[in-house]
């Protein structure tokens, strides 16, 4: 099986789309986990609320995975036969992967920081945790928009 340069570029795009938001989410989830562990030593009963906060920065990794999956599906990698694409098309697909790769990476870390501060809300005023979740969701908006841009671009590229 010989690969074209376009296919390689497209696959690198898919790899970045999965990888970068994945790293970001891992860091975001990690940051929240560190704060949450501090809280749990004081009050183990708040595990449920803390876990919800920890899960929030995890979504970027899922968005990235989603974008990567759609890309390799488009390339025909899953059915076993790679679609023959030109270098130009390869770069197009690469570009389509970039929004979620970059925004997913950064937003997951920032969201992790917001969610980690919200752990403070859980410790002092657990009844107000919804507000902390909302603060974290504000950050997520941009990851959602980036995912949407990636998906729309991918669907728009004709190969």
């Amino acid at each position: 099986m010989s690969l074209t340069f376009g296919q390689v570029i497209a696959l690198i795009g898919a790899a970045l789309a999965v990888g970068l938001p994945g790293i970001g989410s891992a860091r975001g989830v990690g940051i929240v986990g560190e704060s949450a562990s501090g809280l749990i030593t004081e009050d183990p009963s708040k595990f449920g609320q803390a876990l919800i906060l920890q899960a929030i920065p995890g979504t970027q990794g899922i968005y990235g995975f989603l974008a990567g999956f759609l890309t390799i599906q488009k390339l025909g990698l899953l059915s076993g036969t790679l679609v023959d694409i030109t270098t130009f098309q390869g770069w197009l697909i690469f570009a389509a992967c970039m929004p979620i790769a970059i925004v997913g990476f950064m937003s997951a870390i920032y969201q992790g920081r917001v969610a980690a501060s919200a752990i403070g809300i859980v410790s002092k005023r657990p009844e107000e945790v919804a507000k902390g979740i909302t603060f974290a969701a504000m950050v997520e908006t941009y990851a959602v928009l980036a995912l949407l841009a990636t998906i729309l671009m991918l669907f728009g590229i004709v190969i």
Partner: protein
Amino acid sequence: MAIVKMEKMHLLGLKKEQSQIMSALQKTGIVEVIDIVEDNDETAKEVQQDSKIRSELTKDLMDLESKLNNLKFGIDFLKPFAKSVNPLIQGKPNIKKDELAKVLKDEAQVLEALQAVFDLDKRLAQLKVEESKILNQIEILLPWQSLDIPFEQLGDTQETVFITAVMPRKAKDELEKSLEEDELLACIKALGENRDDVYTLVIYHKNHKEAMQSLFKEFSVTVQDFPGLTGTPAQIIKQDKKRLADIEKEREDIKRKSQELSSQKLYFEILYDYYSVERDRKSNILKLLDTDKSFYLQAWLPEKHKDFVKDRILGVTESVYIEFKEPDEDDDMPVLLSNAKLVEPFEVITELYSLPDPRGIDPNPYMAPFYFVFFGMMLSDAGYGIVVSLLTALALLKFKLEGSGRKFVSMFFLCGISTVIWGAIFGGWFGDLIKVKPLWINPLDNPMSVLILSFIMGIIQIYTGIILNAYKNIREGHVADALMDQGLWLVLLTGLLMFAVPQLGAVAKYVAIFGAVGLILTQGRSQKNIIMKLASGVLSLYDITGYLSDVLSYSRLLALGLTTGVIATVINTMAKTVSGSIVGYVVMVLILLGGHVFNILINILGAYVHSSRLQYIEFFSKFYDSGGRAFDPLRIKTTYVELEDL
């Protein structure tokens, strides 16, 4: 519907009937006593606080509080021993009037049992201290185990001195060498050692005492004393171990006694709840103003219940004066919501944000349908919807849920139904596991149509928000404001939207221009001079970016819907690749189960968070006045049991 109308009750009564009246109010459970002592001016407050009755009441309350603490301690202590009845499943035990009377009659016995619990706890604490002391002693004695001289016989004999000493490993050899060189009559016997030190018995002649001591100093030898210990170390350790076994046995004994006492837990709980009801009542009495013979009470209550409350009070006594008044402008009234059965579960979303201002609008009836639709659209898988609805329905039937927990579960039940509907529309049944033709389209085939649908949803919600704000203005009598602020924006936005439809393009221009010019002319009306008026008018058009970003924000309806569908598909694909052999089928089922459970959980979280966010940020910002205080009536509030016939 919506926010319940409150009225203020003023009540003048006789002091001697005060506690009966308060009990009657507590039993109604719908009256919130206002603290008028706090609000009163300083002198009145001082007079109030000086009064003898008040100080007695405060003392009573403190007694009650300590009694409650003790009972709580007893309940917590016995909890691990009692047969656990899960109140979530069984509900609180119902205590009839005669049962309660019996417990109250036998209170002395119950308190004796409580004292027994305290004794057991005290004994446990003592045992714990003793145990750690013994363990510590064993640890110290362990290196000396091979010493066969009882401790009390160490020390001076007629000619010699016996001492126990710890020295560094290296020092021992050097010390022995020095002893030999100086020809001192002494001998060192190693008894035990650890990594750094040697534990030794040193025997020397009395004449060399000073020489020995200076040598000890030189080689950093520590002489160890065992004051108060008798017998050899091995004997002492043996005794200690026996004592440890005894302690363990006594612990078992305490455990058995606790088990015997655990039948008392119910009585502790009954008393706890009984006294906490009493405490609630008495602490509310502190909020009243009183004279020698009479008292004055203010309270909030729902307007529709005022006759009921009045009847109850008159049932206690005739000699009261009661008056109901509508709230004043600046009264801080509490908020009680009352909504239709289908809307009520969604109140929890608003409660998590903030309760409405008592003079504002209850957003729940308007918010609930949107939440219902959005949640379903984001989860958008009929299979997942069925799972969510079934599980929550089971929880509602099986468990005795109360308050906001119940609302939450009911909300997810309703949202599950919405998810089934949207899943059918988009053709998602556990992703593509069960292939059913979509009722409308599959968002993966045609994301643009679903994106436009999302924007339309958003536009409907934003319009609803603006109209609600206009309604609020009109209700307050600001019809002009409603027309100029909300009306003109609606005109402008409608004009802009009409551009999207080609046939309406020609009219759209004029509608939009009319709206925009209207806004420029009216938005600066609070400014004084004409230039500022126009300038703020023009600036107000900048808000259009706000509306634009609000609408774009609804694109998450598509994005989250796609996420669910695609991940479900990925799970199915992964599962399919392993099928084939028997082991393969087992792994396939495991992947399907684990994968879909994970996907359901992560997407419920996403759908919950993002539907809430759309309400909080995009919808509530248009009209909602928050900051209400929850109605917290004086009522019979129990923790462990139901005391219905109190």
